[in-house]
């Protein structure tokens, strides 16, 4: 599926660094082990980093002001560590850039992704965008706070989902 | 799928089973399609069963069932009877509720 943002297909300006090849010009997402190489690039082309599910996002602390994107991943949809990574990026590190979910998340996880601070989704699944959109819209109430700081409903910890 | 599914000896005979997707009922691969009664199951020699299972999984009807695997038969019992307690319970119903033994239903999906 092409890149999804706010329930819409969005053009993708990012390139993913290829193993064993030099970093391309322009916006590039590097794997964590090539982060130093990415930071050493001259010019002001945007830089993003892709992290595996077992990475503690705290390791990105110093580099974060220079990163415009962090990609978290779902090797299988059942591996929910990316939710915690995204949320920690927003809540602990105050990251304001793009958080991209990659790998194999299900459309049914879309609302959870967004509430944990994910902004774009690039999934390997071939899927109709309408399924993702519906998953986002179908439930309008949440029962706990999130990184999106939704409007409290009034009772308990309930929030209105926008 | 449970590790005990598809367990069998190198000799003997087996039948093929699954759960129906829409209602979860146990079914057995029969001459035509899937039956709720093990008495209708096609018997395979264990030398052929792996291929038979592969074929069953590749059939279009496989979309109507979940979890296709083989079940070893007890050679010492008349009639088609699985070897293990677990598969006998699947075939003949819960031992504590004889009134819940499987019967062929007319509204087969």
């Amino acid at each position, binding site marked *: 599926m092409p890149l999804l943002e706010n329930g819409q297909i969005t053009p993708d300006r990012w390139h993913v660094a290829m193993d064993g090849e030099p970093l391309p010009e322009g916006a590039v997402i590097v794997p964590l082990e090539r982060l130093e190489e990415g930071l050493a690039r001259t010019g002001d082309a945007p830089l993003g980093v892709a992290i595996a599910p077992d990475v*503690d996002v705290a390791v990105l602390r110093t580099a974060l002001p220079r990163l415009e994107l962090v990609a978290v991943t779902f090797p299988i*949809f*059942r*591996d*929910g*560590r990316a*939710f*915690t*990574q995204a*949320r*920690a990026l927003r*809540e602990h590190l105050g990251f304001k850039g793009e958080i991209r979910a990659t790998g194999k998340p*299900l459309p*049914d996880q879309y*609302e*959870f*992704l*967004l*509430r*944990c601070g994910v902004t774009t989704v690039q999934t390997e699944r071939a899927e109709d965008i309408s*399924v993702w959109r*519906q*998953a986002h819209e*179908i*439930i*309008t*109430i*949440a*029962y*706990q*706070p999130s990184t999106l*700081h939704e409007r409290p*409903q009034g*009772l*308990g*910890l*309930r929030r209105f989902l926008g | 799928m*449970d590790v005990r599914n598809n367990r069998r000896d190198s000799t003997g005979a087996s039948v093929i089973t699954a*759960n129906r*997707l*829409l*209602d*979860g*009922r*146990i079914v057995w691969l029969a001459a035509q399609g899937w039956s709720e009664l093990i008495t209708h199951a096609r018997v395979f020699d264990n030398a052929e069963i792996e291929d038979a299972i592969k074929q069953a999984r590749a059939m279009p009807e496989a*979309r109507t069932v*979940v*979890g296709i695997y083989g079940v070893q038969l007890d050679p010492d019992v008349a009639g088609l009877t699985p*070897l*293990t*307690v*677990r598969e006998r*319970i*699947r075939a003949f119903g*819960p*031992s*504590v*509720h004889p009134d*819940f033994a499987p019967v062929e239903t007319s509204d087969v*999906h």
Partner: protein
Amino acid sequence: MSTDTTTLPVGRYAYDQVDRTFLSQRVAQFREQVARRVAGDLSEDEFKPLRLMNGLYLQLHAYMLRVAVPYGMMGSDQMRALAHIARTYDRDYGHFTTRQNVQFNWIRLEDTPDILEHLAGVDMHAIQTSGNCIRNVTCDEFAGAAADELLDPRIHAEILRQWSTLHPEFTFLPRKFKIAISGSPHDRVAARFHDIGLVARPGPQGRPVFDVFVGGGLGRTPIIGVKLRDTLPEEDLVAYLEAIVRVYNAYGRRDNMYKARIKILVQALGVEAFREKVDAEFALMNRADYRLDPAIVDGIRARFGIPPLNAPADAEQTLAASRKADPAFDRWVRTNTHPHRHEGFICAVISVKPDGGIPGDITADQMDLVADLADSHSFGEIRVTHMQNVVLGHVRKDQLHDLWRKLAAANLATPNIGLVGDIIACPGLDYCALANARSIPIAQKLSARFANPELQERIGPLNINISGCINACGHHHAGHIGILGVDKRGQEFFQLTLGGSAGGDVAIGQIIGPALPEDETVDAIARLIDTYLVLRHDNEQFLDTYRRLGAASFKDAVYAPA
């Protein structure tokens, strides 16, 4: 929205329009997921976690639906809805589980959206009763009624239930997550056998405080939970639990499902290192977002109906007279009731363990009767216990005899609570795809063998727990006598453990020897009980005698009978 607590449902949270909207959206979501599965747009692998999070298992004979009974509380209208489900979509019965839920064994996938819609009509659901997410938060069966309770844990159970519902970060945990909360110094919820166990008591400024235990559990690796935090203030309750589950989600193992519970993580790190991680998260998080303001708690509390506890001044005398006049009733009061905080009231336990019966199974007709009796005798409030029985929590003492007679007529008054006939058993291999052996026939045989009520009282408190496999849904590790079904070359064998306890003196049962074939197991247990009767001192209970003597005499009784 009524705030008059005499019209709100007693003992549980009253849904409002917002909750109902959410439930109907959830049903629509599942209906759509089923449609995608049937159309082939979702594989079974992808659909499975989605249906599990609506409580739908594919079991040995059919789909099984596990309906949530939040902290074990339901109302008579809800019980009638369960009876309707049993009649319309199942085989006229349901089953109470060891986590206070209800299960139906003969469900069709294609009916499930309609079933969930019917349940939503009475504010019920099956959300997160399975799957790698936070499950039903359980309380003890006498919550809000027991004389010894320091505070009613159900308010905070409801707060945690809501907080954990469709939690965006915690819906794909390494494994399931179970929370229990007790408001009594006598732990009736087995708090230390849960992933998180909370013990609540009154604290300063009239707000409760919580002791937090973590990393307990049964199953393959039974472990008693450790105390992570003492005297946690109420306002930090949600934040602190959020921190614990965040650490678990990040660090819990995902490579081996048998090593994926939080108890394994706590053991691997050690409690000190685990606590450091939790405290670090607790320090970093936006605590203000998660603060449990007293106003929030009181807002939820205001949605719980309160029973008007008015009894005649001579209620106690009336009860005493009935007891004197009716020995069978007297026995039942001795065994099947629990003291209430109000002197004119009493808690009544409805035994769902008839002699020779299937533990926890209840017919649709019995469900309707229980609903009627709840209306006439307990303000419409019904409690499901984790011992697979039912409690009416607020019965007027002068009306107890009438209740008993009606229960007895429906085979729901067996005087065996906490006694040898009150067997806890999982559904086992007769129903469960995970099981190695059948648990129900052993339960039935034991129950029939020890049916005599005098014998049961003479034996005294004795918890027999039967699990059909190592997943331990029968909580056999916590049984005074535990029975575990194992598979030996496709045949059923049973391993016995002794000396477990889920109470304040929590302990894990010890295996006493090799597993026995099915036809020897019941006799072996009878010999164990005989041994205890012979060897006990004074009024020792089984557990006391075992602890005094150790396993040796009991082992001999099983393996080397004279």
